[in-house]
């Protein structure tokens, strides 16, 4: 088992309104089997033992599905590996002696809480604005009374796979939340269940997205490249189509 030495440059920020700065650390006990977050755990343990403050970062499931982790590693959201959340990135993707810069997702709509932890509640508000299908508990009809074309169902699922990590915003040169918003719209709008609220939904979600202070979409497609679930920007085109239908052409 090979031990590696890794040089880390990590963002340290005490709170939302405080100026942050980078701090350098070297870890010489990095193991190729460690996940990226486990490597940070090891660093934090060393810091705690030395009486220093550990770095705060968000995580929960550590299996790539909860969407909590959202580190920007060497300038890339979730690091170098495609279709992989930072928690599933293993150190074998790095070399002995590598230098790694770790920053929080940077966006006005995602203010830093502490160190690498940011506030992504804007995403919650976008969903709350319209990212649902209204069906009171108990009022649902028999499940098989709503057949869904396999193609629509598959399409819908491809976008339902979004884990809400915010990598799309972190990586977008404009800090746009279009992919996140569009993914939810593509999930719900294509299904027959979602049809009645289609127009209302797209208008409400697009409005909320703007209100939160995210930037415009310039079709860079960087969001798709960093998305751990590979959500396609075709959903953004679909969101625009739906929006135009609901407003201008409707």
């Amino acid at each position, binding site marked *: 088992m090979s031990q590696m030495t890794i040089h880390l440059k990590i963002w340290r920020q005490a709170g939302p309104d405080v100026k942050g700065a980078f701090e350098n650390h070297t870890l010489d006990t990095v193991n190729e089997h460690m996940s990226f977050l486990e490597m940070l755990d090891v660093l934090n343990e060393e810091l705690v033992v030395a009486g220093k403050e550990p770095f705060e970062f968000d995580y929960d499931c550590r299996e790539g599905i909860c969407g909590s982790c959202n580190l920007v590693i060497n300038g890339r959201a979730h690091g170098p590996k495609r279709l992989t959340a930072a928690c599933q990135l293993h150190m074998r993707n790095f070399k002995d002696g590598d230098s790694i810069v770790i920053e929080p997702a940077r966006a006005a709509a995602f203010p830093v809480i502490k160190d690498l932890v940011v506030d992504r509640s804007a995403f919650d508000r976008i969903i709350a604005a319209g990212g649902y299908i209204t069906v009171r508990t108990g009022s649902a009809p028999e499940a098989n009374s709503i057949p869904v074309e396999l193609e629509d169902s598959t399409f819908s699922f491809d976008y339902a796979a979004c884990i809400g990590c915010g990598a799309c915003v972190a990586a977008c040169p404009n800090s746009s939340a279009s992919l996140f918003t569009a993914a939810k719209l593509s999930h719900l709008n294509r299904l027959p269940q979602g049809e009645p609220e289609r127009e209302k939904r797209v208008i409400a979600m*697009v409005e909320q997205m703007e209100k939160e*202070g995210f*930037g415009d979409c310039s079709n860079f497609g960087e969001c798709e490249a960093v998305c751990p679930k590979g959500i396609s920007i075709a959903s953004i085109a679909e969101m625009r189509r739906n929006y135009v239908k609901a407003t201008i052409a409707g």
Partner: protein
Amino acid sequence: MPSLLKALSSQVGRKLLTGLTGVALIVFIVVHLVGNLTLFGPPDAFNTYAYKLHSLGPLLWIAEIGLVAVFAIHSYIGLSIWWNRRRARPQKYHVYSSKGAPSRQSLSSKTMAFTGVVMLIFIVFHVRAFKYGETTMTSIPGVDYPVKDLKALVITSFLDPVMAFAYTFVMMLLGAHLGHGIWSAMISLTLSNPQRSAAVYTAGTIIAVLLSVGFLFIPLYIYFTGGQGALIQY
């Protein structure tokens, strides 16, 4: 439901307008290029084309006003997107890099604001030089009074190396702008899907290169042949 104005000024509406105005500008550019290429036609083709265009009178004014409006909208939204982007990320990344395909981040897409602004400045000079520039007069068949010899103006202008190379440079920037722009407009106008995405991107790039080369060929050809090349008939 939001009002039309509100819908058009939303992020989606603005992107739609950028795409629409972009497409209109591309159409204009294509027509412009076709007109320019009459330089390589029969001796009087270019001046005849210019004359006929001018003799449209009020129609031309309307077209010109429309063009200015389209250009203004396109530039305004473009600049506001650039402005929004600074506001949406007040603290920049210390290190930033693209994750590669399927990202469309390229020199072209990253410099849209810059190439756009250069184009904006260029157009002022361009219009002053060729629309309002001083020309000698000449005659063309079927017209019994003298008309502006724009062909001579173009050729004399591009014999100047500064003019020739500045134009060439700007036309390369135009190509860069269109490289991302054509593809982006297709996405903004919701005309692309993931299966076609790569093809649309390639087609967009090819069109951008063709337009750019078409435009920059003229100054370069004139400069390097001293205006005496076989392609230009007198």
